[in-house]
C-alpha cells in the first residue's frame, strides 16, 4: 500500500501544527465559532448531538495492521474504546474531547494517517473497490489512480471552499463495487483496443435530498489527462454551482440545471486551457504510483491444498456457508478475499472495539500480508488469504464474532449512526437495524432470500445509502415524532437505480412487520433463482403496496 515519503510526511505534520494553532485560537476566542467551523470540518471534526465526532480518513479503504493498531489505541485513549467504520470507508470516533483532537491528529500522522478533508465543502476521501488489485474481473488496479487523485485533491488551493461537499469514486473492474454512479464524480478505468487505460467520467450522481444517477461527461478520456480533466470539472462546479441554497448546491443540481451537454461544453472549454498543463500525467509518474502497490509475495498454494480446501468445504456445512457468503474469488489460484462481517447484534453495524481492531490487525499479519480493507458496506476485508489457511482464519474470526456468514444477505445492513449519535438525524437507525437483524436471523431463511441490500439512513442526507438499497429505510421526522419511510428497487451496482417510495411512512415498531410483508410478496412472486431486485423490477411496486397497506 501507499507509503509516505518525506513530502507526504511533512505535509501531514505541518497540517497537525496548523490545526493545533487553529484550535488554540478557537479556544482563546480569536477564532469565532462560524470561522472555526470549516477549519475543524476539513480536519474531520464535527460538533455532534451529544459529543464531538472525529472522522479519520482511510484513503480508498486501505489500512495496514500498524495503522489499525494505532486506531485501536487512539479509540481506547481518547474515546470509549470503539470506532465506527462508515459507508465512505472512513473511521469515526464518537466521543473525543474537542481539545484533544490536535493530539489525535498528531498520533495519526505518526502512522501516516490524517483526517484531512473528511468533511466540509471540499473534495472528500476518494473511495474505491474493496477488491482492488485482486479481483478477477479487474482491468486496471484503481489504487494508484486513487492515490494520484488523493494527492491532487489534498489541500487543493482553489477548491477548499466549494459550494458543497464533493465525492469521487473509482472502479477498475467490470462490475462496479464502488457505486460510481451515485457520486459527484464517478470514474471507470477501462482499456481500449491498444491496451491503453481510458477513463469514463460520470458527473452529477449522488444521494441525499435529491438522489440522482450520474451522467457520462466523457467516455474515453486518455489516462494522462485524468487530473487536468478533473480540475476542469471541479472548476466549473466551483464557478457555477449554486451557493444560495445548501440543498441545491451539489454538482448534481448544476448538471441537471445546465443539462449534460451544456455542462460538458463548459468543462471542455475549461479543459482546453488546462489540457497538457503541468498536471498532465506521464508514464513515469503513473509507474511511480504503481510501485506502491506491488503484488504481495504470495507463496504458491499447491493443487493438493486447494483440493483439500474444497473437500473440507463440502464436508463442513458451517464452513461452506461462510465460504459461500463471506469469501470472494481471487485472481490468483489458491487465494481468496475474506470479508469480516461487522454486522452482529451486539454492536451497531460497522462498529468495532479497540480489542477487536487489534485482533484483526494480528489476523491480517498472520493471514493476509498485514493489510486490511474497509468496504462501503461497512465490513472489513482480508484480501490475500491462502486457502490452506481458511479454516484457521474462519475459526479465529468466529471467536471474534466476525464470522457471521451473512455478507450480502438481508442481515448485512448498511446503516448510518442515526439519531443515537448524529446531530443531523431525524430518527434513530441503529435500533431499526438491530430489530431487523433479530427478526430475520434464521440463516436458511436469509439464504433463501438470496442477495438483498437493506440500507438505513436516519435522515435524508442518506449516509446509509437508503436510495440504493434493494430495500431502503429512511427516518423522517413528523412534528417531533420518528417515522420510517420504506422504498424498494434501489441498486448501487452496474445497473444502478434509485428506490421508489412504497407509500406513507410507518411507526418504528411496525418496521419489521412491514419488511416481513415485503419479503413475503417477493417469496411468493419470484421465479426460480430470481433476485429480490429482479422480481421487483418485473412485477413493480403495486403488489408490495397492496400487501403492506392492506
Amino acid at each position, binding site marked *: 500500500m501507499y*507509503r509516505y*515519503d*518525506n*513530502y507526504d510526511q*511533512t*505535509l501531514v505534520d*505541518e*497540517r497537525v*501544527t*496548523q490545526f493545533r*494553532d*487553529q484550535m488554540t*485560537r478557537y479556544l482563546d476566542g*480569536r*477564532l469565532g465559532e462560524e*470561522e472555526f467551523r*470549516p*477549519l475543524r470540518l476539513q480536519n474531520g471534526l464535527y460538533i455532534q448531538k451529544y459529543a464531538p465526532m472525529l472522522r479519520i480518513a482511510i484513503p480508498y479503504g486501505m489500512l495496514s495492521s500498524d495503522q489499525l493498531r494505532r486506531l485501536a489505541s487512539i479509540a481506547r485513549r481518547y474515546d470509549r474504546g470503539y470506532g465506527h467504520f462508515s459507508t465512505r470507508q472512513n473511521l469515526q470516533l464518537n466521543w473525543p474531547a474537542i481539545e484533544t483532537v490536535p493530539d489525535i491528529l498528531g498520533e495519526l500522522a505518526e502512522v501516516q494517517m490524517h483526517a484531512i478533508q473528511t468533511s466540509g*465543502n471540499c473534495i472528500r476521501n476518494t473511495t474505491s473497490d474493496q477488491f482492488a488489485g485482486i479481483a478477477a474481473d479487474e482491468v486496471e488496479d484503481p489504487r494508484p489512480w486513487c492515490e*494520484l487523485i488523493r*494527492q*491532487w485533491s*489534498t*489541500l*487543493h*488551493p*482553489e*477548491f*477548499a*471552499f*466549494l*459550494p458543497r461537499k464533493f465525492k469521487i469514486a473509482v472502479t477498475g473492474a467490470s462490475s462496479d463495487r464502488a457505486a460510481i454512479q451515485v457520486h459527484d464524480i464517478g470514474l471507470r478505468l477501462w482499456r481500449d483496443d491498444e491496451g491503453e487505460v481510458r477513463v469514463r467520467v460520470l458527473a452529477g450522481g449522488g444521494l441525499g435530498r435529491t438522489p440522482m444517477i450520474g451522467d457520462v461527461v466523457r467516455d474515453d478520456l486518455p489516462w494522462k489527462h485524468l*487530473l487536468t480533466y478533473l480540475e476542469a470539472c471541479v*472548476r466549473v462546479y*466551483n*464557478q457555477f454551482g449554486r*451557493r444560495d441554497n445548501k440543498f441545491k448546491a451539489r454538482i448534481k443540481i448544476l448538471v441537471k440545471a445546465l443539462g449534460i451537454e451544456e455542462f460538458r461544453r463548459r468543462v471542455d472549454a475549461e479543459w482546453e*486551457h488546462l489540457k497538457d*498543463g*503541468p*498536471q498532465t*500525467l*506521464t508514464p*513515469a*509518474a503513473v509507474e*511511480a*504510483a504503481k510501485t506502491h502497490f506491488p503484488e504481495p509475495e504470495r507463496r504458491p498454494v499447491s493443487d493438493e491444498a486447494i483440493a483439500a480446501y474444497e473437500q473440507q468445504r463440502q464436508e463442513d456445512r458451517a464452513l461452506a456457508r461462510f465460504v459461500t457468503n463471506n469469501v470472494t474469488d481471487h485472481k490468483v489460484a489458491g487465494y481468496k478475499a475474506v470479508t469480516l462481517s461487522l454486522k452482529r447484534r451486539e454492536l451497531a453495524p460497522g462498529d468495532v472495539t479497540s480489542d477487536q481492531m487489534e485482533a484483526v490487525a494480528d489476523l491480517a499479519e498472520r493471514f493476509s500480508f498485514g493489510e486490511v480493507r474497509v468496504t462501503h458496506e461497512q465490513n472489513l476485508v482480508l484480501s490475500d488469504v491462502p486457502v490452506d489457511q481458511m479454516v484457521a482464519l474462519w475459526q479465529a474470526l468466529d471467536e471474534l464474532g466476525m464470522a457471521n456468514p451473512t455478507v450480502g444477505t438481508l442481515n448485512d445492513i448498511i446503516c448510518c449512526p442515526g439519531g443515537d449519535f448524529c446531530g443531523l438525524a431525524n430518527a434513530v437507525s441503529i435500533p431499526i437495524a438491530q430489530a431487523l437483524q433479530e427478526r430475520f436471523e434464521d440463516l436458511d431463511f436469509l439464504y433463501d432470500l438470496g442477495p438483498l441490500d437493506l440500507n438505513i439512513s436516519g435522515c435524508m442526507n442518506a449516509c446509509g445509502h437508503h436510495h440504493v438499497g434493494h430495500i431502503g429505510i429512511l427516518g423522517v421526522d413528523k412534528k417531533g415524532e420518528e417515522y420510517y419511510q420504506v422504498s424498494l428497487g434501489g441498486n448501487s451496482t452496474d445497473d444502478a437505480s434509485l428506490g421508489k417510495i412504497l407509500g406513507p411512512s410507518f411507526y418504528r415498531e411496525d418496521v419489521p412487520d412491514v419488511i416481513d410483508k415485503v419479503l413475503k410478496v417477493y417469496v411468493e412472486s419470484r421465479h426460480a433463482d430470481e433476485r429480490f431486485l429482479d422480481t421487483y423490477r418485473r412485477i413493480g411496486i403495486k403488489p408490495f403496496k397492496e400487501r403492506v397497506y392492506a
Partner: protein
Amino acid sequence: MPDQQPTVARTLLKKGQPETDTWALSRDSEALPEQRPAIVPLALWLDAKEDSGLAPWLPSDTALDSELAKELASAPRIAIDFPAFTDGRGYTLARMLRERFGYQGEIRAIGDVLVDQLYYMSRCGFDALALRDDQLLEDAQRALGAFSVSYQPGVDTKEALFERRLREGNHS
C-alpha cells in the same frame, strides 16, 4: 459589508509583508469616489479606466472571459471580493487572471479575508491581502507559511509534486 464610505484598509499584507495601504476601497456601485487612488466596482471602472488613479474590484460571480480579461490587462491592480469567506469563487478568478490571462499586476483579496484562507490565496496568485479588520497580523503571517510542500502546481510553483519527485529521484 455594504459600507458606502470609501475606506482605506488598515492592514495589507503585500507579498507576505505588512504595508501601509494607500488605496481606498469604494463599494458604492452608483458613483466614483472623490479619493484617488481608489479601488471601485468593476462596472464603474470599465467606464473610467483611463483614470490611472482607479482600479477595479471584481465581485465573486464575475464571468471572466477573454474579452473582460483584455480590458483588465491595463488595470494598475485588480481586487477580488470575498463576500463571505466560504465563497470560493475568488480563488478560481485569481488563478485564471494569472495563469490564463497572464496578468502581472497586484491581485488583492478584499472582503471577508481571514487568516486561515491566506495560504490558499497566495497559491492562487493573490499577492496583496486586505485582511478583515479584526484579523491579527502575526497570526496572518504565521498562517501564510503553514506549509512548505504542496502536491499541486499553482501560481507559486509550476511543477506538480509527482514531477518534482521524479526529477529529484527516489528518496524516502
